């Protein structure tokens, strides 16, 4: 006979999540993507074509179009995704390397948004009064901010060497800051609303009746109850940020050439509309990544909140 055991909330959520096949597929894809990003140098080494290696011998320099030689954009065993027009850089290794930039920026931007949003939301909701009014208006200001215009302007103003950083790392930090810093009000509002409903709960009164300090109530009594919505929102914010990063790179605001990014590859591909394969691979990469995160996020929400079904 099976022993009857109490299950923790985490175990119950995990059980529900395991039953959700779509979410699990999303989860597996995410794990594979992350592994791919981390192991990119090794994988590319195995392929044998660094992302910025020119392969002029694969380009049709005679016809004047500078298209890759061979069918389907130069697809071959050596270059499974084909090569770029003009320079002949290997597309597969560029897509693999592009995942690093996309995921890195999306993860840290999300982390930044969630951290600021959680702290602001919990403080705003718990203390109420003028603190709440101030933070809520601040959220309104941030939401009304023309982020895209600001990002384009900032990218133009910031020199190649600033804040003790330069080149790619400067651009990456800048993108993380721009995307993360301006997105916090969304999670802030969610956390604020949850906090307001939680702070009236009796266990908060009970903790106060025993002499608990405010920081204890905020971080030990309230925060564990906020983990579920924060987690779900984070997994849904990551794909949004991936898209935003791609959009910025597409507009030329992101990490600069020759570093491979998905958005940048799309941008390069636009001028070669006669060679759709060039656009296909980075586009597919963005599509799959965003879809996987969204599927997993939805599944996670269903698993953590039984009432959402």
């Amino acid at each position, binding site marked *: 006979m099976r022993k009857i055991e*109490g299950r923790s909330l985490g175990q119950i959520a995990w059980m529900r999540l395991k039953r959700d096949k779509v979410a699990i597929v999303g989860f597996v894809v995410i794990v594979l993507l992350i592994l791919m990003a981390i192991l990119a140098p090794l994988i590319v080494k195995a392929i044998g074509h660094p992302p910025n290696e020119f392969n002029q011998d694969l380009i049709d320099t005679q016809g004047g179009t500078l298209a890759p030689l061979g069918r389907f954009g130069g697809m071959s065993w050596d270059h499974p995704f084909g090569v770029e027009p003009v320079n002949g850089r290997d597309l597969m290794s560029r897509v693999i390397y592009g995942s690093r930039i996309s995921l890195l920026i999306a993860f840290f931007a999300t982390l930044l948004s969630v951290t600021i949003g959680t702290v602001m939301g919990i403080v705003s909701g718990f203390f109420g009064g003028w603190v709440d009014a101030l933070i809520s208006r601040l959220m309104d200001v941030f939401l009304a901010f023309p982020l895209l215009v600001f990002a384009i302007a900032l990218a133009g103003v910031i020199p190649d060497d600033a804040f003790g950083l330069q080149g790619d790392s400067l651009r990456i930090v800048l993108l993380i800051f721009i995307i993360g810093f301006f997105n916090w009000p969304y999670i802030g509002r969610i956390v604020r609303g949850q906090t307001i409903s939680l702070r009236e709960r009796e266990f908060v009164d*009970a903790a*106060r*009746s025993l002499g608990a300090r405010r920081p*204890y109530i905020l971080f030990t009594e309230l925060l564990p*109850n906020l983990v579920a919505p924060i987690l779900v929102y984070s997994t849904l914010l990551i794909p949004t940020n991936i898209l935003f990063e791609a959009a910025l790179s597409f507009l030329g605001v992101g990490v600069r050439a020759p570093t491979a990014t998905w958005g940048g590859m799309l941008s390069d591909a636009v001028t070669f509309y006669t060679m759709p394969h060039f656009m296909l691979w980075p586009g597919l990469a963005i599509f799959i990544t965003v879809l996987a995160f969204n599927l997993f996020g939805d599944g996670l929400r269903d698993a953590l909140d039984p009432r959402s079904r």
Partner: protein
Amino acid sequence: MTEPNSFLEVRDLRTHFPTDDGLVKSVDGLSFSLDRGKTLGIVGESGSGKSVTSLSIMGLHKGGSARISGEVLLDGQDLVSSSAEEVRLLRGKRMAMIFQDPLSAMHPYYTVGHQIIEAYRVHNKVTKAVAKKHAIEMLDRVGIPQPDKRVDAYPHQFSGGMRQRAMIAMALSCDPDLLIADEPTTALDVTVQAQILDLIRDLQREFNSAVIIITHDLGVVAELADDIQVMYAGRAIEYGTAEDIFDRPQHPYTWGLLGSMPRIDRERTERLIPIKGTPPSLINVPSGCAFNPRCNYASLNEGASETERPELLDIGAGHKVACHLSPGQRQKIWETDIKPKL
């Protein structure tokens, strides 16, 4: 009136909440005192200010919105004029509270033991191991079987009665001198109610603490209380020993409460006598005696009940009542009208 050296003294306590509709006078001029080892029962209908009284004493009324005045002297220290931090240091250590619904009053994410440990460690600089030993001791004391195992259980794994026992263990973990129990048995079934009331009484004897028990259940106060305060519309309308209230009640509202209480010694064929009408809005408290619109005897005083608020006056041996009826009238009504029906 009140002895000046009582352990808890409440003097002219007023807790008002400004709202868009007007000023809600939840507690409006309440005075009482309580000694160590004694139990005060506060009874009244919903919205009579019982719970707000206890929250005001504990300093747990909602932050900026409440206007609180008067004095709450705990062992001589005025809690109303003390800073929030000073009052926080007293909560748990000198005064603690038992809530109505132990399931919602315990944090669902932490084990029962963890919560008692945290409560103990707020006021005692001890290691987790020492605090855990103390938690197990407390659980044992409130009658939880296998406390060394149960200490690691979550609140939802406890039955309702066990949860309330654990809540009591938590409240008593720092040995407070004042224990406020806000409807401690309302969420429990009747057999468990009796056990919890016994437990509170036993622990009170053991710790020699002062206990305030807030309830709308006269059976509960009959069981536990030394003194009883009957509240109506934020004010005390009758105060006396349990014998005074049950054997010689003087206020028409108290008569109403007693008449609406089911009793095991009463014929089953008889109907309970409800108090007509509903409790008044605390924004628009009726002028004069707040109870006058619902009182059967308000017409006996040539309109005094409608215009003049009766003071809470001592009618002998600490039995106090706020009513315009003369002692003779009350005596007559009680003897002829009320007592035979109870």
